[in-house]
């Protein structure tokens, strides 16, 4: 078993709303081993981004707050350290890539300035050396004509190029952990494969760990070592990627896998679907929330299922109705020819 770079124990993150505090992340625990990529998947609103933002304390305050739990980065609890120390970690040892690079980059500053700012914030080097480093970073992330790009504004770059700049900024201080929050969702497929390829290549070269947040199970299958599946603020299943796709045990995971239209299968007349939709966050029950979605009458709305290890490196939220021996959703095997 490899060592963990990041360990999260019983994380609770809540938001203040008109109807009181609601838990967006409800006792979530997982870890990221050194040098591995962990995928965090789930549908919109399941709490995956909030989990990531809780790690680096980028929640919109004061509305959103981490109320409970430990976030251990290299054994140090990030909730206990001072703001100044946390600033060193965020952007220094932990790099972050956001979904929409146009929103994350400052539109009125040149690319070079933004890179130099990030570098000099965390490293004591001269402006000239920082500029040199910025240039080598842009080259590393595959931006053509990097010298010219240093003086370009974000709007002058295409979506893919902007995302490369974001990656360069995230990598500028040689982070140990890269948090990528839907890094390719806003991009076209051909550009997506370039960016995913780049992230994987850089990760290998630098020995980084990555937390890859996505809703795309294709991206998860191709890019991650382990997967954490979230539903309605909780983790429902966690396993090695190959294991999860081969033997999904929770009905939600099975439903997700079954419902994607796939190129490598014969078209079906009807896709399997998960009925209903995620309940509103203010209506969440304490019991199994997938049962809540399916309106199962025999589910106990007050009894929260425990997390159970069912195989080495494979744990599942052990709701007796969702985890059964016979799969509730048939995850068809792919056809081999294409």
């Amino acid at each position, binding site marked *: 078993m490899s060592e963990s770079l990041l360990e999260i124990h019983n994380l609770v993150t809540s938001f203040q709303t008109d109807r009181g505090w609601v838990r967006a992340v409800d006792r979530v625990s997982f870890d990221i081993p050194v040098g591995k990529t962990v995928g965090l998947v789930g*549908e919109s609103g399941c709490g995956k981004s909030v989990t990531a933002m809780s790690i680096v304390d980028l929640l919109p305050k004061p509305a959103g707050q981490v109320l409970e739990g430990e976030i251990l980065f290299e054994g140090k609890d990030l909730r206990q350290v001072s703001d100044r120390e946390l600033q060193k970690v965020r952007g220094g040892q932990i790099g972050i890539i956001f979904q929409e690079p146009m929103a994350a980059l400052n539109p009125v500053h040149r690319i070079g300035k933004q890179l130099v700012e990030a570098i000099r914030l965390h490293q004591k080097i001269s402006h000239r050396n920082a500029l040199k480093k910025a240039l080598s970073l842009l080259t590393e992330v595959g931006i053509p004509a990097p010298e010219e790009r240093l003086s370009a504004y974000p709007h002058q770059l295409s979506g893919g190029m902007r995302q490369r700049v974001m990656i360069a900024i995230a990598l500028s201080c040689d982070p140990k952990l890269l948090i990528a929050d839907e890094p390719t969702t806003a991009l076209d497929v051909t550009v997506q494969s370039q960016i995913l390829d780049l992230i994987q290549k850089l990760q290998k070269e630098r020995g980084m760990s990555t937390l890859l947040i996505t809703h*795309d199970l294709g991206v998860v299958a191709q890019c991650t070592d382990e997967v954490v599946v979230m539903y309605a603020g909780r983790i429902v299943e966690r396993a090695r990627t190959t294991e999860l796709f081969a033997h999904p045990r929770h009905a939600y995971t099975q439903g997700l896998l079954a419902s994607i239209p796939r*190129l490598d299968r014969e078209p079906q007349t009807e896709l399997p679907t998960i*009925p209903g*939709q*995620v309940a509103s966050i203010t209506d969440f029950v304490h019991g199994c929330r997938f049962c809540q979605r399916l309106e199962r009458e025999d589910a106990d709305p007050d009894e929260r299922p425990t997390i159970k290890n069912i195989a080495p490196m494979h744990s599942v939220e052990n709701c007796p109705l969702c985890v059964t021996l016979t799969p509730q959703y048939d995850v068809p095997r792919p056809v081999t020819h294409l």
Partner: protein
Amino acid sequence: MSQDLLHISDLKVHFPVRGGILSRTRGSVKAVDGVSLQIKEGETLGLVGESGCGKSTLGKAILRLVDPTSGVIQYAGRNITQLKPRQMLPIRERVQMVFQDPSESLDPRMSVGELLMEPLVIYGKGNAVERKQWVAALLDRVGLPAKSIDKFPHEFSGGQRQRVGIARALALNPKLIVLDEPVSALDVSVQSQVLNLLRELQVELGLSYLFIAHDLAVVKHLSDRVAVMYLGKIVETAHAQDLYKDPRHAYTKALIDSIPVPDPTQKRESVIVPGEVPSPLNPPAGSAFGHRMNHPKYEETIGMEMMMGEIAPDHFVVADPCCVSEEDYKAIVF
């Protein structure tokens, strides 16, 4: 062989780009540049391509929401390219559109009942009682509870809102629906519900669809035939099965290879396509995809007229020496 419901030939939509103090026309964006397509009755034609390739503009041009620069659009044998707005009314009754983002395409201040009633009122269909009955039937058809009639768009989830958008498109009993990325904004589990609904409606009501999407897997699932668009032009059309099993154009291959397969045991060595879609404001002079790939034959294609040719039954590909095999190229040109 059923008749073509929609027949588009050599359609061009160019947008002028103005600039300078006198706002003279400085150039044009060739959003759609010589597209020919046919949709038969009861058929779904998928239209795929990356953002900016002109697929949405093409969809809008069919409803004359943007005006074509040249070319001919025929609906049920009638040329609708030059019709005046008033003359378009009966066409729009038969051709409807569903937009990508239902939270933007539905008026937030109208209840679902009003939203669905509006087209009926405009077209003077039935009396108040009949309209109410029809709206109730529409809601039922798209799988929304009857009580939704008094709710407002913000009270629904994304998937339900898209059902409202679909119900609105169905209100006038159309024959053809242009679906512009109808499931792109939805989560996977909801996406499959909406895809199933679209398929059911097609079978029940005998609808034809132009299904515009960037997600090839989604397109494959719903379409009979698929057209691949790149930089304002159609590069390949074929039956959905043939296109995925035997893509002939390099861009189609690249698109298929770029999709991450949701199966960790099939790690595909993805062929990385360099660069991005060039700006339609300043497109390359020759083969657009050949230029992106830095193809050695690119120089040859500058100024070349490239035609579409049938290389297998119902499988058409553009004769681009950079992007198709030598045999295919020869088969089309000679």
